[in-house]
């Protein structure tokens, strides 16, 4: 029994696999905004019965010396040729449209429920594109979906 206990850490170590990285860490500067995706889980995707629930948090800083207006309602997720609306809001105020002060840092949560039943994603892996508008320009991040995510 004692020997079996000794083997447990080894078995646990060998059975663990390297996680698949879906989203690479990137610090970007777009339209005088500084944006990072450091709080995005690099490998996990939440599974629900109807399909994967996609979440993508961002941290953004306004680098300009003046306040700016943000409208996140046009955010989307591009999977293959399919454009899916992405629901983004300010994590603190929960607003989709809001103003940010000069040099203010704010957090954005983007999320959407994807649907297995549509079937169109069950053939190939897709490098999806997350597109979030920031006052006229968009910040874009890539995200890898696997066939298995939609099965």
């Amino acid at each position, binding site marked *: 029994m004692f020997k079996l206990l*000794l083997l447990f*850490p080894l078995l*646990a*170590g060998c059975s*663990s696999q390297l996680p698949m990285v879906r989203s690479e860490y990137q610090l970007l500067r777009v339209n005088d905004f*500084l944006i990072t995706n450091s*709080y*995005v889980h690099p490998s996990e995707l939440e599974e629900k019965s109807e399909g994967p629930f996609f979440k993508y948090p961002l*941290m953004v800083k306004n680098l300009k010396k003046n306040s700016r207006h943000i409208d996140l309602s046009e955010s989307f997720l591009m999977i293959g040729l399919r454009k899916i609306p992405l629901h983004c809001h300010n994590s603190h105020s929960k607003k989709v449209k809001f103003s940010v002060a000069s040099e203010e*840092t704010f957090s954005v949560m983007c999320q959407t429920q994807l649907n297995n039943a549509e079937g169109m994603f069950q053939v190939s892996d897709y490098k999806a594109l997350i597109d979030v508008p920031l006052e006229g320009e968009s910040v874009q991040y890539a995200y890898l979906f696997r066939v298995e995510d939609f099965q």
Partner: protein
Amino acid sequence: MRMFIFLILFFSQFTWANTGTDKNIYRELKDFELDGWKQVETSSTIKLESACGVEAELYLVGNHRHNRLLMGITNGNQSPVIIRNSDIKFIFDGKKERFPGYQFGNLDHRVLEGWWSIQQVNFPKKKDFKDVKELEVIIPVYNEKDRSTCSLTARFLKHKEIKSESFSYSAIEFAIDVGGELGQSGNFKKLGDPSGYVGFEMNFFIRPEWGLGMVYASEHNFKNTPSSKIFNRFRRGDDYEARVTYLGFQYLRRFYLSDNFTIQYALGPGFQTIENSTDTYNGDIEGSSLALSQKLIFNWRYHQVYLPSRETLDLILGAGVIHHYTPGLKIAGVNLDGHRSNWIVRVGFQF
């Protein structure tokens, strides 16, 4: 041998766990970001800064031993830049200036044009964070092309005071104890006088002040003396020496006298076995029972080793006493319940 294999396997887990720590920024933030320094608006310690042609994101993270600056840097210049980690300046409340020092991991690093890097830099002492409201971080950025140095500055503000974020303690402890007899009482004296005590223990501190542990100990050479009535059954010429082994769990309480000195009290139940340790008598002499053990140890952290993983390992020496109570222990039908005490000296290490 079994213990040796166990230690190798145990430490290999830490090695794997530490692999690629710098790269997994998400894991570092989720597990180690300092809650007391998070801002309400972002639920994060993040500071996003742009200066010297580089973009930087800075976070405050820490475990039970060290606080660290986690920094991601993207180089937007047309030439490589060098970040001199050992020259990074930390200013606490605008008064106390500290440098990281030249430890493992605090090496300069070069970021090519258009590339990014993630680094972690240890703060010198966690206790620098105690009762301060503001921390300013100044990062010198050296531009290779025009040979100029520019500084990137970030200012962190504390939201609330959390004790564990300014107090360094070890969470895992391994120790080997050796010692001898202090005294015996009750029926246990019938077993004779032991000549030595060897013990090994592994403790996990869940909080700075308390933890849980496991002990394996062995006492040797309880000799068959004329006063040991238990051995009347043996024939002349029979040689009998007993060995008592103890396997138990313990609750630990730790008291801090200073950074380097602690007093540790342990109390817990265990299982005790007694068996013949010689070859000349082959009779069935075995017994076992539950036991209760308590221990008082004085520990001295005499040396600190810096590990490549940016962590530190403390080497400890200690001394103290152990007391065992064994109700219901029997061997060969003879009741051996009673108390016994040992003195011990300790050598060990802590993370």
